[in-house]
């Protein structure tokens, strides 16, 4: 470029020094780990978005394979079905029968209810269902007989029982023959949704309270600090469990509220410190001089200058809440029974592992580990990019 052209360019568009965000973006793109982890996170987000709008894994609840169908890659090496079940019937390990009982108790499958009901009408022993569940399509003949007797052509649920089921699936199947791959995608959706929603709730709460405490100081600061000290003196997980004990109705909203309402404390402290630092700066006093209101000064003038702190905290808390949600759901205090999450999958996997069915455990663990690792690395890179001094 000639000097003249440069001058012309400079004249037409006054030289703009790159802002914080574009600099940070450039630094982020210069970091290979950051790019890889960002791509992984975006892939997960797209996957759960696709699952959310129903493009993939919509029918995760359908029983498409035989019970505990092994993953395709391991279909030859894994032949547990016959001998393990025989072992279980011969009285096997004590844990096994306990697990089997738990399965029956936890059974909320509409199809099975229908079958039990229909069998009851036939006057057959319903107890048979318990042991029959594990055998491939055990009620085929019963269903055929039923159809004849009742003259039913069968609704969707009943018809399903007659379908040909797969012997193996790419990721295997769970105890009802549901596709583990679809379950784990559905689980990603739940966990990511809860993680993000709870992180947004916590960040909003922490930022607004922190802004008020830091900006106004005095009595407001004292009151909010008191509030903060209450929440921070109770260990996080204990507070979560206490609230879970009180809130009876289960649901994704409840989990989000539990996590969001308890997890805002560290954000509050950081944001408060930032506002304390910024409120006396010249640009805020200038805003005051031109008559900007308190709210305007807090959220229009100061907030953009501390938003990088908030963004990093948001990112950190997504990871934290995804992990917490998994534990809550595992314990049965999290998402409701008809929703699948990584935590509820791990809960099922715990009993399955003893029977030798490891694929659900591996699928849930692998998906979670990949997302959380990528998200943590991305958060680290984001922090380094936004605050190069820290490095």
């Amino acid at each position, binding site marked *: 470029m000639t000097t003249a052209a440069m001058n012309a360019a400079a004249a037409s568009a006054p030289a703009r020094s790159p802002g914080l965000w574009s600099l940070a973006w450039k630094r982020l793109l210069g970091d290979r780990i950051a790019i890889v982890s960002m791509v992984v996170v975006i892939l997960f987000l797209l996957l759960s978005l696709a699952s959310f709008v129903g493009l993939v894994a919509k029918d995760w609840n359908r029983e498409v394979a035989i019970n505990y169908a092994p993953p395709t890659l391991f279909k030859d090496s894994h032949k547990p079905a016959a001998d393990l079940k025989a072992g279980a019937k011969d009285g096997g390990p004590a844990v096994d029968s306990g697990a089997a009982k738990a399965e029956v108790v936890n059974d909320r499958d509409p199809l099975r209810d229908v079958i039990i009901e229909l069998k009851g009408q036939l006057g057959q022993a319903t107890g048979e269902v318990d042991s029959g569940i594990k055998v491939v399509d055990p009620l085929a003949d019963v269903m055929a007989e039923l159809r004849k007797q009742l003259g039913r052509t069968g609704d969707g649920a009943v018809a399903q029982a007659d379908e040909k089921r797969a012997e193996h699936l790419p990721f295997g199947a769970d105890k009802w023959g549901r596709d583990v791959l679809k379950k784990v995608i559905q689980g990603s959706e739940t966990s990511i949704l809860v993680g993000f929603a709870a992180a947004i709730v916590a960040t909003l709460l922490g930022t607004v309270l922190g802004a008020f405490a830091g900006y106004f100081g005095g009595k407001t600061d004292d009151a909010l600090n008191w509030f903060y000290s209450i929440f921070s003196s109770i260990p996080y*997980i*204990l507070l979560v469990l206490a609230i879970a004990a009180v809130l009876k109705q289960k649901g994704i909203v409840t989990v989000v509220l539990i996590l969001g309402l308890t997890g805002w404390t560290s954000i509050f402290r950081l944001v408060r410190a930032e506002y304390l630092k910024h409120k006396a700066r010249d640009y805020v006093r200038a805003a005051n001089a031109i008559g900007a209101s308190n709210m305007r000064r807090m959220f229009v003038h100061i907030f953009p200058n501390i938003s990088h702190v908030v963004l990093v905290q948001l990112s950190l808390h997504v990871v934290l809440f995804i992990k917490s949600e*998994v534990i809550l759901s595992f314990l049965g205090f999290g998402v409701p029974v008809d929703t699948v999450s990584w935590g509820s999958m791990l809960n099922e996997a*715990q009993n399955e*592992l003893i029977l030798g069915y490891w694929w659900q*455990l591996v699928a849930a*663990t692998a998906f979670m580990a990949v997302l*959380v690792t990528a998200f*943590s690395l991305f958060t680290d890179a984001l922090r380094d990019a936004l605050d190069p001094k820290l490095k």
Partner: protein
Amino acid sequence: MAAYIIRRLWQIIPTMAGVILLIFTLFNVVGGDPAYLLAGKISNPEQIANIRKQLGIDEPYWMQLLIFVKQVVTFDFGASWSTNEVVSHMFASRLPASLMITVPLLILETIIAVSIALAVAYVRGSFTDRAAMVTCTVAQSISILVYIIVFQYVLAYKWGLFPVQGWGNNFGENLFKFAALPILIALVVSLAPNIRLYRTFLLDEVNQDYVRTARAKGLSENRVMFVHVLRNASIPIITNLMIQLPGLLVGLFLIERFFSVPGIGREVILAVERSDFPVIKAITVYVALATMLANLAADLLYKAVDPRVELK
């Protein structure tokens, strides 16, 4: 010093009042009427009224709050709703099992985490350092549940190195037989985040001028790292330890639950599952108190470690 301690203890009172108010709001106002829960499925109005009277929840809220405050102050939370065991007795009998896992864990974890952090901080920026950090990040992303499930299955169930679960009556048997695997798992889980944390604490120190001076005057690397750097980095490390302390008591609840260890953490889970409010209330209030006292102790420890620290 004495004035400082008294002032800090005095400051605990309003926070404690807040904790009591929060727990009270949660369990007595939001929590709804537990009488129906306790009476079970077959209940009549007299029964319900009777239970309400027994629990004191037919009183107005301010009266209930007074009862709760009295319970906190006198350590008398009455009996558990589900097992009828006196709550204070429950605490006393569950604490040893929790401590049996927590105390060895804390000692081992601190020694191992600090040594590894020192080693990786010393070779900072090298391949070893980066490999260790990546390992920690990945190890941290795997849920604690997976560690417990897999370790219990492989080490105890498959290989039979440890008992799958259980607890004995004998101190030695408990410590070396039943607590061994829980401690091992807790160690593996807590090492990764702590090594990362301690490494950053140490890295803050290794670039300081006094380290250069120590090297310049010819001190051995051992002396520089173990005496100069470690002593200065010990303040944030102590903070981290003290902050972990009260949470550890309940924080091991998953491990206690999996291994049927009769500790406080398992009791919390059982109480939440059974909606056993007195037990949860008692544990929450006292653990909050313990947290505040631990924070105070941490501040006092700073003074002992670093004479420059001024207590205000």
